[in-house]
């Protein structure tokens, strides 16, 4: 039985097996980060115009007719949001493939030939993630809406946080189980999921996930620290070009870092499943 370290080391090395496909996945991430930079810029503009409007008129924001707001920009932001959601479905589909390849112990990275299949898998992945987060979300929303009292709200949000964590740990194995059997039903087969986890041992299971997340966070924090350093230097030298520079840095980060992190993380998740069914 391979140890935790072996799984994580294998996962870290895995994306280097095929740099081209890593970059292919990176293109998707780069698109999303570019869009999100653009979106945040636009939303800031909308916010600024709206504040300006409210200041100059006697009405409050809720009484204001929709046509007075910067409609064009709002539509643009909504459209961009939808586009980035669709791209993220493709990314989820790709992650599905990575977990699959990991379970099948293939050394190469999955390709991009089956675009439609990727999209369908992405929807499946997304549905499972949403389904597992429904219960804690409901608890949290009910808590916020029904209970106004501050101390009770604190307790309820803590309960919701614990539920989120439990749901997350189950979710990892559920996704693996779904991918391994290639059926959506298996994602909700709690007996099998819990049997798999107990087979591996709860301590080891939780430990490996937490360790993976720590490694992931360290890489992300370090790289974004370096990138923000570079951004700062560039902005200082090329003045008045802050937007272009942050755009550029966001693309770089999406292209190399986010894709690497996602592939690494899903690879390790897949190998957890391999360990659990031994």
């Amino acid at each position, binding site marked *: 039985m391979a*140890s*935790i*370290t072996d799984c*994580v*080391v294998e996962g*870290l*090395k895995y994306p280097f097996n095929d740099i081209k496909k890593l970059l292919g996945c990176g293109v998707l991430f780069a698109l999303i980060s570019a869009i999100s930079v653009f979106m945040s810029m636009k939303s800031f503009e909308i916010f600024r115009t709206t504040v300006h409007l409210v200041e100059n008129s006697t009405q409050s924001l809720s009484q204001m007719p929709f046509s007075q707001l910067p409609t064009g920009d709002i539509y643009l932001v909504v459209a961009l949001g939808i586009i980035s959601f669709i791209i993220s479905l493709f990314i989820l589909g790709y992650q599905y493939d990575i977990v699959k390849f990991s379970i099948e112990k293939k050394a190469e990275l999955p390709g991009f030939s089956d675009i439609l299949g990727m999209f369908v898998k992405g929807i499946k992945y997304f549905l499972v993630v949403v389904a597992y987060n429904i219960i804690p979300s409901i608890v949290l929303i009910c808590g916020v809406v029904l209970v106004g009292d501050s101390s009770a709200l604190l307790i309820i949000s803590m309960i919701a946080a614990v539920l989120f964590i439990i749901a997350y740990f189950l979710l990892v194995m559920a996704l693996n189980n779904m991918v391994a059997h290639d059926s959506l039903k298996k994602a909700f087969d709690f007996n099998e999921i819990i049997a798999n986890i107990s087979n591996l041992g709860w*301590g080891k299971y939780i*430990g490996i996930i937490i*360790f993976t997340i*720590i*490694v992931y966070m*360290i*890489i992300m*924090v*370090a*790289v974004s*620290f*370096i990138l923000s350093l570079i951004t700062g230097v560039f902005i200082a030298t090329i003045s008045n070009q802050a937007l272009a520079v942050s755009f550029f840095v966001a693309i770089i980060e999406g292209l190399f870092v986010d894709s690497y992190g996602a592939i690494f993380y899903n690879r390790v998740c897949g190998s957890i499943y391999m360990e659990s069914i031994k």
Partner: protein
Amino acid sequence: MILDIYKDALEYSAKDWKTLVILGVICLFSFLLLPVFLLTGYNYRVINTAVHGVINGRDPMPGFDDIIRMFVDGVKVVIVQIAYMLVPFIVFIIFAVIAGQLSGIASSALMIIGCIITFALIVVACLMDQMGICHMAYNDGAFTKAFAISEIKEVIDEIGWFNCIATYLGLIIITIVIATVVTAIIYGIFTVFGISGAILGADPSGIFVLGVLINSLVTMFIVGPYLSIFNARSIGLLYTMQI
């Protein structure tokens, strides 16, 4: 026994100056955050070689192959150290919170007791966490072994608490002495240069700047890596001193 450890570790660390320079380069880039884990990972490798080796044997210096594994090992070491250091930290916080509720003499008395207890805990936690890392390395890097308190306590009991603490104190003293002596020698040389230059009519400030530069270079590329390998090797060898 303790002197044997020091002798072996001092010789071992001086085996390969290339390794020292590579470690120095990593150390130079450690402001980028990721190389920090490479440094701890390399120390882990040294410990790993030591706990599986024999004292005064011909253990080779670990290489720099498989950087990713080194990084992951480094992350593990850092996690173990943080986890052990959390205990005294939490105890200190508890004391501080309770003392904050009290007033007057009771508060300061409690705070003094808290500080003493925290200090004792820090010493114990340092001991335990170094031994924990050795124990982890000995058991092929199994994470749970780093926190198997009873096993680690048995190991320390077999070595002897006095021996352990004496070795640690010795390590601290040797580290400080070497670092200070090297710095003192370099500054001494350059002070002589500067004074003789000044007597001959040259401006001594350039010579002093050069002295500071050379001192920091030597510390970073030679002395720092040497001492870190020395410490890791000594602790690893201490672990093998069980009866």
